[in-house]
């Protein structure tokens, strides 16, 4: 019999409702799995908080208050989402011991649905700065498909935990691909919702105009369920949008006959791994056999996406991270002089990548450079968004690879930040344009590493993403394959 932790959330909900499983049994299976294999994967943080499976006490059964009932289902949370009662450190020394006196809005919504917030948080690049989960103060997470490889990042812990059945499902955050890229590297499903769809309240900000929280799951149905629970207007977030959330699961099972897909030529150029290219082309062919039409399109400003992103994201980050100064919370270096205390605290508290990005962002905003960098980047962002607007007038979705390559080796890109930045080349534009995109498993390299297919849609059209992703998934087996650990 399959262990409970191997199942998807919707399979477990089914079992729970039929009384074929208990909340305790599900958690027990997870704890056993984590104890057995997290030494190798290192998806979770603060393992000392893991209590033995015998002492697990689940709360009394209670249906959700917001129309969802996730009773008995634990969910794993990335370390940059504030959880009251659990330390939230963004995998940074500078937030050492931070115990938020509030829950993120997504956590509130999950609690209202009676979900169990898993007590261990998942690993990530410090402040979500990275594409490999190597920039964590707690050390790197390993890819369950090949422990020598990175799981992607920055939500590498969440993706690896879901892929290795150490989690039922998880939340990540995506600023430039931080959900989709690790989902792709780990062979799981990851969605970046439309900007404004999910409240950012309680998500420790990296780049406020780009960040979104989203699900990382074992299949598309789970992604649809979880998205629906966490989405919706939040009066505590001025950038959340007051629009009703459709019932996403209604999009599952619909055919995709007659849908029109744009294949941007700018995404199939040099730098792309030849094996990945073939796998993606096969996936597109598969979609066509299901009745969709695909045409080559052009997103002419794609080449500017990475530079624009690294200006806007770092500029916002430089200001968002100014608050980490050793006064109200977190780490403080010893000094009897305020300005030295600031400098030492931040010099010692931030890791290399954080310092690099804060300084780059400070530079982009500084006097004499603002117009050449920040302002110009805002303008280019408009152009990138317009590229998408134009395509979505005629096409339902845009289909691309999620990443130019499969997972790379741990340490392979740490010496060369620019090379690392370029691994986000296919995911970044989506954040700049504010549109939703999903990554689903679509094949494996000869080396046995998963490859992800990215589907993008216009703003607030997550439904079509679930519809297409589900149709593809139901006609393939990729999502059912499990890493051998």
């Amino acid at each position, binding site marked *: 019999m399959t262990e409970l932790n191997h199942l998807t959330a919707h399979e477990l909900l089914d079992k729970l409702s039929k009384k074929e499983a208990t909340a305790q049994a599900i958690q027990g299976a997870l704890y056993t799995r984590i104890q057995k294999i997290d030494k190798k994967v290192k998806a979770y943080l603060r393992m000392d908080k893991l209590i033995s499976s015998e002492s697990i006490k689940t709360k009394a059964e209670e249906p959700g208050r917001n129309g969802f009932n996730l009773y008995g289902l634990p969910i794993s949370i990335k370390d940059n989402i504030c959880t009251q009662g659990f330390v939230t450190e963004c995998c940074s020394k500078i937030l050492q011991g931070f115990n938020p006196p509030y829950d993120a809005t997504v956590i509130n919504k999950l609690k209202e649905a009676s979900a169990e917030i898993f007590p261990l948080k998942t690993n990530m690049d410090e402040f979500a700065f990275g594409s490999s989960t190597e920039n964590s103060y707690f050390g790197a997470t390993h890819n369950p498909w090949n422990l020598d490889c990175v799981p992607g990042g920055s939500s590498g812990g969440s993706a690896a935990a879901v892929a290795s059945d150490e989690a039922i499902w998880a939340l990540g955050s995506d600023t430039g691909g931080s959900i989709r890229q690790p989902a792709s590297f780990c062979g799981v499903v990851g969605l970046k919702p439309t900007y404004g769809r999910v409240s950012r309240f309680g998500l420790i900000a990296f780049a406020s105009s780009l960040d979104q929280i989203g699900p990382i799951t074992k299949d598309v149905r789970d992604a649809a369920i979880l998205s629906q629970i966490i989405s919706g207007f939040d009066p505590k977030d001025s950038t959340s949008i007051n629009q009703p959330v459709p019932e996403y699961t209604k999009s599952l099972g619909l055919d995709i006959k007659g849908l029109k897909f744009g294949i941007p030529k700018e995404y199939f150029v040099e730098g792309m791994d030849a094996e990945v290219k073939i796998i993606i082309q096969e996936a597109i062919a598969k979609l066509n056999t299901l009745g969709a039409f695909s045409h080559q399109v052009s997103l002419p400003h794609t080449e500017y996406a990475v530079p624009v992103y690294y200006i806007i994201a770092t500029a916002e980050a430089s200001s968002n991270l100014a608050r980490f100064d050793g*006064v109200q919370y977190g780490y403080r270096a010893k000094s009897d002089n305020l*300005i030295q205390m*600031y*400098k030492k605290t931040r010099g010692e508290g931030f890791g290399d990548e954080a310092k690099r990005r804060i300084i780059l962002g400070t530079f982009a905003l500084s006097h004499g450079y603002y117009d050449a960098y920040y302002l110009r980047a805002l303008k280019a962002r408009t152009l990138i968004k317009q590229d998408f607007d134009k395509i979505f007038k005629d096409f339902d979705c845009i289909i691309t690879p999620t990443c130019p390559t499969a997972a790379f080796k741990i340490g392979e890109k740490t010496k060369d930040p620019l090379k690392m930045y370029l691994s986000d080349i296919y995911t970044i534009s989506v954040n700049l344009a504010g549109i939703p995109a999903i990554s689903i498993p679509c094949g494996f390299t000869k080396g046995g590493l998963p490859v992800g297919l990215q589907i993008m849609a216009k703003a607030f059209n997550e439904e079509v993403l679930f519809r297409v992703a589900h149709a593809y998934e139901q006609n393939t087996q990729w999502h059912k394959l499990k890493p051998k650990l």
Partner: protein
Amino acid sequence: MAIDKKTVEYVAHLARIELQPIELERLSLQLDDIIGFIDKLSCLDAEQIKSASHILPVCNVLRDDEPHICLTPEKALENAPSKKGNFFSVPKIIE
């Protein structure tokens, strides 16, 4: 536009980040590399384009002037690295 060590040092000061000499050395080279790449943007003819400070389709988000319950001072200060009574405390301000 290249970035030199002096600029990096100045910007690090603005960002209140202490850099060890070896870090400054390495960072200057890396940033020069990154900015060289970012300079691709200067090819873009951006004169006529409106800058998108928000891509958001919403504006005029306001809340009612109704008070909520504040944190207790104990809770507010719970995470503080240093406090005195009900105050946060910081080292002397020497400028």
